[in-house]
């Protein structure tokens, strides 16, 4: 609670302090200035459009992809199960850069291909737009929904759907009235996470919306903290955002509290794959190909093309091809090795601690005292809504006079405080699907609380725990918003180095992004091998 309340209070207090000639005074002046500025409303409107758009598309895509790989007999589903997660390993910022390389109106690879090679005059939709931002956010946030949904979807008792189908319900009716409602906790949790995170993301709108003068909330906050800065107004912006998050969390809880979502019961069952008709099979494959093509193949091809060029001229020219970018980034640039080690440390330790906390919190939220849990949930959800840069600022204010300043520990604390609610939501969604009767039976049979946790609950939660750990691991490797204010010399992470390199050359950024991707994929494959043995055990 302290981790969360500290930076939150720091932000609130800063929003209420107004500096004039005589010094600081408590005032609502920052809020008044914010609300009287028409740019505030434009920024909020554009952010809401991007956030809602990305959330809807991500939910539809994430749900559909999870469903086709976990519940159908689509060919190649085991491979797609892994491939669907690959966009998660590319940070949205890298995704935005690669999509700019692909679809920039005057120099994009796809545009050049369409006009130069195919000789067509087809113009791709403008990438520097709200639509472009929404597209990239949707592609790279779909795996969030996918990760949230796939575990409860796998655990869901197929008999529930079978019963509906036996009674004459159509496929769509069953989906609408049985499958989706049962997965609603996971879907709503992921929707909240996607909305808040995508709306608070700074780099993607900076790369794709700012060039066309489209204001968004994170870019406005970024402008406000630049010298000559207006930190009071930036903090008040943060407080408004946090209030919206609290409201959304309240609504989500209220909605879920009215319903029951147990899909895992004490009865034995075996989820059976649904046999698709040829048309359905083609549609499922088509969906996968479009998603993997847009979220993995095309961005990676673009990054490879740029990373093998000494300068990027809009196309790969033999005269400018080089390996120098990789050589420089991997061996010539001193920061890279240190940053890789730092990121791995933060991701491994942070994900493990974060998941541990998340399991305890999720348990309390679902099985604990009903009166207290709403308020605890609200408080612990706060970091979700605080833009990384504001949260970083809050932690900085708290830590700067302590020995934690300039250490990896403060970054670790900020990561866990900001992101463990994500893990909580993954685990809680699964927990909500587990009927408490299972634990009650264990307890009635003489098992202690610890034994019940160890032999009943944790094994059932294992898929969600593993998914949450993986999610935190990847998020920590990619995190930038909070790190950018908290890092110091010797505590740089890979994302910080990406930003530093972007001042240096886009071809270096592409090379490091590819190295980061390979590293994350390697970690993921290792993780899968470990996971198989874990689940078996």
């Amino acid at each position: 609670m302290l981790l969360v309340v500290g930076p939150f209070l720091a932000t609130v207090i800063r929003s209420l302090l107004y500096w004039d000639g005589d010094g600081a005074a408590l005032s609502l002046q920052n809020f008044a200035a914010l609300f009287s500025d028409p740019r505030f409303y434009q920024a909020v409107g554009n952010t809401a459009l991007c956030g809602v758009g990305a959330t809807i598309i991500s939910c539809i895509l994430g749900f559909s992809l999870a469903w086709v790989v976990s519940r159908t007999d689509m060919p190649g589903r085991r491979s797609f199960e892994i491939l669907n997660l690959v966009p998660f390993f590319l940070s949205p910022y890298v995704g935005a850069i690669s999509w700019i390389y692909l679809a920039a109106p005057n120099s994009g690879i796809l545009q050049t291909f369409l006009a130069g090679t195919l000789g067509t005059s087809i113009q791709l939709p403008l990438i520097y737009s709200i639509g472009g931002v929404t597209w990239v956010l949707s592609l790279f946030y779909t795996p969030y929904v996918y990760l949230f949904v796939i575990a409860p979807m796998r655990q869901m008792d197929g008999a529930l759907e079978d019963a509906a189908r036996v009674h004459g319900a159509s496929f769509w009716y069953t989906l609408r009235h049985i499958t989706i409602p049962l997965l609603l906790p996971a879907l709503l949790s992921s929707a909240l996470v996607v909305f808040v995170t995508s709306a608070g993301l700074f780099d993607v709108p900076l790369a794709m919306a700012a060039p066309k003068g489209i204001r968004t909330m994170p870019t406005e906050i970024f402008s406000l903290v630049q010298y000559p800065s207006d930190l009071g107004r930036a903090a008040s912006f943060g407080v408004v955002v946090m209030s919206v998050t609290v409201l959304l969390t309240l609504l989500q809880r209220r909605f879920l509290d009215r319903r029951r979502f147990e899909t895992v019961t004490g009865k034995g069952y075996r989820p059976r794959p649904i046999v698709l008709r040829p048309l359905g099979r083609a549609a499922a494959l088509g969906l996968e190909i479009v998603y993997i093509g847009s979220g993995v193949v095309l961005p990676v091809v673009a990054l490879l093309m740029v990373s093998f060029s000494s300068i990027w001229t809009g196309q790969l020219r033999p005269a400018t091809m080089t390996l120098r970018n990789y050589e420089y980034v991997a061996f010539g640039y001193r920061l890279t090795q240190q940053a890789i080690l730092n990121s791995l440390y933060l991701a491994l330790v942070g994900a493990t601690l974060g998941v541990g906390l998340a399991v305890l919190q999720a348990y309390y939220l679902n099985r604990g005292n009903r009166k207290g849990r709403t308020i605890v949930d609200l408080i612990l959800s706060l970091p979700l809504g605080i833009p990384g840069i504001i949260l970083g600022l809050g932690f900085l204010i708290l830590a700067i006079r302590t020995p934690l300043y300039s250490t990896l520990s403060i970054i670790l604390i900020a990561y866990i405080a900001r992101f463990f609610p994500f893990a909580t939501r993954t685990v809680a969604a699964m927990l909500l699907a587990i009927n408490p009767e299972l634990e009650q039976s264990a307890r009635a049979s003489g098992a202690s609380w610890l034994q019940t946790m160890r032999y009943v609950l944790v094994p059932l939660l294992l898929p969600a725990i593993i998914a949450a750990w993986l999610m935190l691991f990847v998020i920590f490797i990619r995190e930038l918003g909070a790190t950018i204010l908290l890092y110091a010399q010797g505590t740089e992470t890979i994302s910080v180095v990406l930003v530093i390199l972007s001042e240096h050359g886009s071809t270096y950024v592409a090379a490091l992004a590819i190295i980061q991707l390979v590293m994350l994929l390697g970690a993921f494959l290792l993780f899968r091998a470990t996971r198989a043995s874990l689940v078996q055990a």
Partner: protein
Amino acid sequence: MKGTFAPAFLSIFTALGIAVDAAAQELPALQGAAPEEKARVLQLVEDAKKEGGLTYWDVVIQPETNDKLSAQFREYYGLPASFKVNYQLSSTANLVTRVEQEIGADRVTIDVAAIGSPTWVFGRVNKGDVLAYASPQYRHYASTFERGMGKDGFFAFNGAYLFVPMWDSERTTFNGKSWKDVFGAVPAGRMSIGDATKSVTYLDTYAGLRKVLDLEYFKKLAESKPPFLLRSEQIAGRLVSGEDLMAFTGMPTRAYQYNQKGAKLKFMLPEEGVVLLPQSMFILKKAPHPNAAKLWIDFMLSERGQEALVRGEALISGRAGFKSPLPEYAPSMDSLKIIKIDWESVSTAELQKMREEWTRVFNP
């Protein structure tokens, strides 16, 4: 006893004298220096060795240039290879934020910072956050102090840069000589501009240009619907890829770096004048390695340091009598028509007002 000690002491002192003299002869930093200066530098070198390293932050110097500068710095003062030069390339905004945080928290880890925002540095000097240090090199920078681009006894600039119209000559033919010639040079939407809401250096440039170009000029410029960009590297990169055909605020340093790799970027120095952004370099008052920091300042402002810096970054030197090795990209200050700005008297409130004006005109 006396008879035995005297020759021994004599031989020790002689040996020490020879050693000091030999060291003085070996160190490039001491060549031609007066005895008092030699003694001062040697003392600083000894103290710097004890400190073991220094940390400097900069917003322009690239890693390759830093490697060369660091190696030359060690050689210049005879510092061991174990002496660490910790360097951080940062954005202007991040550097400002970081320095202010460290000063505010009384936890200073940065020794030297260099940033193209003299107004801000003057502000820090006035608040007493900058270490007073009368570098012997400052006498070569007297004219820049007179122009208000530094403060004697506190800071000078290691190099200056500017933002001017730039284009890729393989895609665009442009022979303009004035800021006004950019109108109609390329189709609407194909000339980028630096985003002054997010960068103080573009804001400073706008504030300076407003002295020679009226508001109507910028309103007309806004009608050409320029893309708003943040990073100078991105601005140059978009010219090379053909995404933009011209940049209103291109950086000659980037043209130099891209052209080294085969690009054909060109830029003009408009007849109305240019805004020179001096990379003001200063030592923080509570720097953890003040002696090494003083040596760094001396080295960077020396003829040798300037030569390495200009060759690497195509920055404009402020050192009197310095002959630029890259006159095409980094001409001498005297050859430039510089728009006069009284950096010391510009207040934060004025900058905020200017940012508001820019925002109203361009509506980004």
